[in-house]
């Protein structure tokens, strides 16, 4: 919402400082987003009077003017404007003046067709005050020549841009903001008098409006039928005849320009003025173009068409309210009128609409039409249903003042089900209890009254009448907020009071995630956070009904595709060593029809590049990570994230591993090499992903440290094809028994001395008895028993030599 400082000043009858306003408005709940000074670049322009106009000796279209600009003697100025007249006053930029528009250039003395011009007389466009460039700007001012233009013509202003929350439609106009400021400043809000030139004809004989609870009425020969009571609870219409539509007077144009609106014509500008002053959207339409003449407020028919003011043909539906004449829609209610019924220079008689449209209806209409306007924005938030007669009256006064015309009959006010102000009962002790400090009853009354609530005592409570412009105030707590807000949030003390501990335990998944994060980071991986939206990843992916783009039309089912994308991004930035992990939510379709999606937390990692950083002592090249680095990281991830799973070689022949749940045998994780769009210099890419389990791990029990010495043996075994190291280890352990403390593979060999297709695998065995020193012979016996077992069960023999 853009406010004009001067407009607020006119309502509050006092000067306002933009910086002060910023603080006050923020603390009242309307934070200021920007303060924009207007027209402050006109400081060098002065008022000048033309004393004499002569023909330029060398050009028909130019004139030579003798100008009094307040200096000791008049100066000669060349002027090209057709409207220059002796005796009149115009804005004048002297030699050396800084020209507006931010160009930064200073005006120089120069010859125009052989005659020297001392400065220039300016048009509205040249001063940034409008689009008019057909002539110079004539000033109707008593100011003496030489007076600074900015002192003579009140165009200097500040735009104050405020943020208005969805619950405060009353702040979408100057009166509403002035009301808040008045409460803060101790001032009074008064609507500024409409400058009229001639006296506004008094309206008393045609006011108040003719209020009917019927759905039909006639005003000055125009029939008004309210058929859609749900979409339009209240509809007022006035007929003004004999208007002359032209350009608006400077004061009106200046007000609208100051709030960022382009002046159009007297009638449209008058309705816009009321919109920004009182938050009442109005619509004026040309009576001559109204078939009937009738105004019918009804639901639109299916596929009914209307060409709106912006020139677009729009198709309406019965979900929308339309303002129609006897034949067809002329306005999309509350949103935009038709090009056809628009008021223009040829309009003499008009119908002025002042309505309340149901907020939800307007919201749905503007969404369906994808057409948001100043009117729809306000109707959608709820305007002041009870303030309509005052707004309409002021609009009529303004139109008659700027465009002439006559109101021959009282306006019509169709209001089938009149309502009154809402009353809310407020207990003062509830205010104190919620706010945490005692608040006196008298203070509550004073604060609420200051912004238009009407407060009366009722038993031990207060009966508070809510003004029509505050649709957001519906319960006692809403009044508590008003009290707190007007008192000032920052008046409440900052003091820590006792509190009771809560009953909610810490969510175990949070500590599970933290533990996994810590372990993976410690293993040299960086945590990534990737975008969880992407293309479909298999048939179980959950689709988004209203995606932003087709590439992001699904929520992720796995983390790995996102991480691979991030690896490619890093490759594109010439990063070769990439180790990333992510812990995040993944989704899949629910099993039963109509069920919600399933979601769980997943842990994934990607690895590529050097195994460790290079060091000068070891030469330049460090080996790249391979599947064995992957296996280590997968085992680590499974151990910390899914401790009820075992890592096993993946089924299906490809290189890779699975994390298999020990109880159910279900695979909950996978690791293996990944395909990616890799540059030639990149190393192989590996990935892993496992479902995070929430398990409660019991405290680690202490195991006594061994006091006895170990006995160590190395054995090299020849494994025939199809026999895995894990199978051999298992048999060795079983056969050797508990005295075999550790069993580590330390070598694998294929080639000379080993039969083709076989391989030699070497184990380092550590034997220990915690209670006594083992004898060598005992160990030899255990080992040979174990070797016999692998030979019998797996056909594995000790390697010769």
């Amino acid at each position: 919402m853009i406010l004009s400082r001067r407009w607020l000043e006119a309502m509050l009858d006092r000067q306002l400082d933009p910086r002060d306003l910023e603080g006050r408005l923020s603390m009242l709940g309307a934070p200021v987003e920007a303060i924009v000074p207007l027209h402050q670049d006109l400081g060098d322009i002065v008022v000048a009077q033309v004393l004499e106009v002569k023909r330029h000796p060398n050009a028909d279209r130019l004139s030579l003017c003798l100008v009094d600009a307040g200096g000791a003697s008049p100066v000669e100025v060349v002027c090209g404007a057709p409207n220059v007249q002796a005796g009149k006053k115009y804005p004048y930029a002297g030699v050396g003046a800084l020209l507006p528009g931010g160009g930064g250039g200073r005006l120089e003395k120069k010859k125009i067709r052989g005659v020297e011009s001392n400065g220039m007389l300016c048009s509205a466009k040249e001063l940034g005050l409008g689009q008019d460039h057909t002539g110079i700007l004539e000033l109707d001012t008593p100011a003496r020549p030489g007076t600074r233009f900015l002192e003579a013509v009140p165009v200097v202003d500040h735009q104050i841009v405020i943020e208005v929350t969805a619950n405060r439609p009353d702040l979408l106009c100057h009166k509403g903001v002035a009301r808040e400021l008045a409460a803060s400043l101790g001032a009074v809000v008064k609507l500024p008098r409409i400058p009229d030139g001639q006296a506004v004809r008094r309206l008393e004989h045609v006011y108040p409006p003719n209020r009917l609870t019927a759905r039909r009425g006639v005003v000055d020969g125009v029939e008004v039928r309210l058929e859609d009571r749900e979409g339009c609870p209240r509809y007022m219409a006035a007929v003004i005849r004999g208007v002359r539509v032209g350009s608006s007077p400077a004061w009106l144009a200046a007000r609208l320009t100051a709030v960022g609106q382009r002046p159009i014509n007297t009638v449209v500008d008058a309705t816009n003025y009321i919109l920004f002053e009182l938050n009442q959207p109005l619509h004026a339409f040309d009576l001559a173009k109204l078939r009937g003449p009738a105004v019918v407020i009804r639901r639109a028919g299916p596929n009914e068409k209307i060409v709106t003011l912006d020139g677009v043909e729009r198709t309406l539906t019965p979900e929308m309210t339309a303002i129609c004449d006897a034949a067809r829609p002329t306005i999309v209610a509350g949103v935009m009128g038709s090009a056809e019924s628009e008021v223009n220079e040829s309009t003499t008689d008009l119908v002025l609409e002042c309505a309340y449209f149901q907020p939800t209806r307007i919201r749905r209409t503007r969404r369906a039409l994808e057409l948001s306007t100043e009117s729809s924005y306000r109707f959608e938030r709820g305007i002041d249903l009870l303030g309509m007669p005052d707004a309409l009256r002021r609009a009529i006064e303004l139109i008659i003042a700027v465009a002439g015309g006559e109101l021959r009959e009282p306006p019509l006010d169709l209001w089938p089900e009149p309502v009154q102000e809402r009353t809310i009962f407020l207990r003062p002790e509830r205010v104190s209890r919620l706010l945490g400090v005692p608040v006196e009853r008298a203070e509550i009354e004073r604060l609420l009254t200051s912004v238009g609530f009407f407060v009366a005592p009722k038993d031990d409570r207060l009966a508070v009448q809510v003004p029509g412009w505050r649709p957001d105030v519906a319960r006692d707590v809403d009044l508590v907020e008003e009290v707190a807000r007007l008192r000032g949030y920052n008046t409440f003390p900052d003091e820590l009071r006792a509190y009771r501990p809560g009953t909610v335990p810490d969510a175990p998944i949070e500590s599970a995630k933290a533990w996994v994060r810590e372990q993976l980071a410690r293993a040299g991986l960086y945590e990534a956070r990737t975008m969880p939206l992407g293309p479909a990843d298999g048939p179980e992916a959950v689709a988004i009904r209203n995606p932003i783009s087709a590439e992001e039309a699904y929520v992720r089912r796995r983390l790995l595709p996102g991480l691979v994308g991030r690896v490619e991004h890093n490759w594109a930035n010439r990063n070769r060593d990439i180790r990333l992990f992510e812990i995040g939510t993944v989704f899949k379709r629910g099993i039963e029809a109509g069920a919600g999606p399933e979601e769980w937390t997943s842990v994934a990692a990607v690895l590529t590049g050097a195994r460790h950083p290079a060091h000068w002592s070891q030469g330049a090249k460090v080996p790249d990570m391979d599947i064995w680095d992957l296996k280590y990281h997968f085992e680590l991830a499974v151990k910390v994230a899914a401790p009820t799973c075992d890592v096993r070689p993946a089924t299906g022949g490809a290189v890779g591993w699975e994390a298999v749940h020990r109880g159910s045998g279900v695979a909950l994780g996978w690791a293996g090499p990944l395909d990616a769009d890799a540059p030639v210099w990149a190393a192989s890419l590996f990935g892993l992903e496992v479902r995070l389990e929430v398990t409660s791990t019991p405290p680690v029990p202490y195991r006594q440290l061994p006091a006895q010495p170990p006995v160590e043996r190395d054995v090299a075994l020849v494994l025939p094809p199809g026999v895995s190291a894990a199978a051999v280890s298992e048999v060795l352990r079983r056969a050797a028994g508990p005295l075999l403390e550790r069993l580590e593979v330390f070598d694998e060999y294929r080639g000379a001395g080993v039969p083709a297709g076989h391989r030699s695998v070497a184990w380092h065995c550590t034997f220990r008895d915690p209670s006594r020193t083992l004898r060598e012979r005992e160990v030899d016996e255990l080992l040979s028993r174990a070797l016999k077992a692998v030979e019998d069960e797996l056909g594995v023999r000790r390697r010769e030599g």
Partner: protein
Amino acid sequence: MRDLLAALTELREHLKEIPQAGERRLQDLKTEILGRKAGALTKILATLPRLEPADRKEVGAAANALKQEFEAALEARARELKRAAGDVARLDLTMPGRARWHGGLHIVTQVVDEICEIFHELGFTRAVGPEAETEWYNFGALNFPKDHPAIDAQDSFYLDAGKGEGEGEGYLLRTHTSPVQVRTMKRYPPPIRVVSPGQCYRRDPFDASHSPVFEQIEGLVVDEGTSFVDLKTTLSQWARKFFGPETRTRFAPSYFPFTEPSADMQVSCSVCGGAGCATCKQTGWIEILGSGMVHPAVFENCGIDSERYTGFAFGMGPHRIAMARHGIPDIRLFFESDVRFLAQFAGGAP
């Protein structure tokens, strides 16, 4: 046997090499000669049991003597090298040390943890909930009016799941972690003191200052007698611990359908100390979180007696807080996962 003795003589040659060997060569020699598996001398010793007793004695004596000599020489040289290593004059101590790969946590995770840890000290526990929520939990229970502009700020992604839109049964990606409030109140009796961090989704464009996905931390306190003063004090306490003890806070009215009164909390700009700078847009203040007293309608929707209990709630965006605190100019950097970016906040080189 002759062969073995000849081999021993040959090995003995290496003894001469030891006093000049560098660290690496010394290690190699040790492996070549005394290695547990393939050391030359080890192999010779291993053949002893197969020799005739007389030969065994002769070769064994020679081999064992040589072994002892080697061990002594190796040890002596190792000691010498060790001494030399301590000799500063021979070492360039400015040469780089041997590094390992570093990893680390994402800056947003760090900020979330830091925020939650402070609330933990203030008696809050962590609660979490699903990211795919029903409309009722995300909007309805939180007193969002249907078809109201208040929902516009939270344009949602609807999921192709559940019974479809309307009647609160359609599924969407939660637009805030506030549904966790509702789930917590429905499950646990007051007093409640929780913070709920988590990922949220809004149908915003992905640009320098917006992301369709972002992290949020929401907090909830419910008890008898909880007041606006408690809200202000708790949040100010948190701000002083997070941003520094000099931090000032101020509260301004705001609007959230699920709180009344509602308040935005601003903190004095930590960059300029409140004098005005680019970070705070010359205002001296930075908006950090939204908050308010829990709306009685929300209590009623969760089956909590709104006459007996009062409470407050708040929500903040760790992405934005991280951006303000670390001067990160573009929210997309958090999702790009450039290892150089991640490393900056993990205290190590990539």
